[in-house]
């Protein structure tokens, strides 16, 4: 009985549509030989769900459809301006972020930033050195007593002083 239910499911689908694997089809065909209930069911399925659709004639396509489609397409083409489309394409080409140019731009900005920072640092160091030099000059002229206190007693110090 359970087997009959299984076969009836197949009769409603794969069997009637010729989609069943050969092995199972053979098994089902053998079952139909010995099971009158399934045999009647198979005939009913074919008669009531498949045969009514045999030889259904195709309906002619109303001519008005193409006329409407053509008019709508023509309307779209009138709106279409090749020059505008070309300009839009160019804009997109330049405005859309492309991976390589974007990466190159980022790298360039990073390098420019680094160079600027380096220049500022060098300038600051120079200014600092000059400041220290001026202080040392002032000290050497006796305008400050810090140099004495900070003297290391090196030969180069003695030379300049």
């Amino acid at each position, binding site marked *: 009985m359970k087997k009959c239910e299984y076969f009836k499911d197949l009769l*409603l*689908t794969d069997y009637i549509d010729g*989609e069943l694997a050969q092995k199972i089809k053979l098994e089902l065909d053998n079952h139909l030989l010995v099971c009158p209930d399934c045999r009647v069911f198979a005939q*009913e399925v074919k008669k009531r769900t498949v045969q*009514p659709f045999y030889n259904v004639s195709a*309906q002619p396509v109303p001519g008005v459809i193409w006329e409407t*489609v053509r008019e709508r*397409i023509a309307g779209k083409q009138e709106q*279409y301006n090749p020059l505008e489309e070309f300009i839009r394409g160019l804009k997109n080409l330049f405005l859309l972020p492309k991976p390589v140019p974007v990466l190159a731009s980022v790298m360039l900005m990073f390098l420019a930033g680094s160079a600027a920072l380096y220049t500022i640092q060098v300038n600051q160091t120079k200014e600092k050195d000059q400041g220290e030099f001026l202080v040392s000059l002032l000290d050497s002229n006796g305008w400050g007593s810090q140099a004495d206190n900070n003297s290391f007693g090196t030969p180069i110090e003695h030379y300049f002083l």
Partner: protein
Amino acid sequence: MQDISEDILTRASQGDIQAFEEVYKTTSSFVYNVALRIVNNQEDAKEVTQEVFIIIYNKLKNFRFESAFKTWVYRITANYAINFAKKNSRIKTAPFDEALGEGAVENEAEAHIEEEHQSQAVENLLKEINPDQRACVVLRNIEGLSYQEIAKALNININTVRSRLKRAREKLMAVKQQVRGLTAADTL
């Protein structure tokens, strides 16, 4: 549906209206008939077909030839028609006597009556199932697509195709069971 050359598709994607007309001529019968069966109404089928071709025109430049053009068109058509049918409340379940196709005009020529009768019977049968199931039945039973092709066209799992077909057919069987002895389709 015939295959369309890559050259025509490329030209159509670039806005060549004559090339797009070729695409339309090759695919419109399929698109209209699938739409008609899914939305089950001629006026709605016209609207769906128009919209499908506008979508095809707009998206053609993005078509990459990785999948078959046919599958791509199936997908756009079936999905648009299913969504349209779901939104549209005009689709109502037909009474059982309507599902038998009793609306055929008796005074017309016999062949024409037969054709009308069958078309009406199919239309009424399809009203009995929901748009998702209807799409599977139409693509399988009328268009002859395999389960794999239906799965691709509707962008669903192949087992979902199976279960939708099973439920649709169970419903069709149930309808027919209730009107046993009166079925017009029995005479087909």
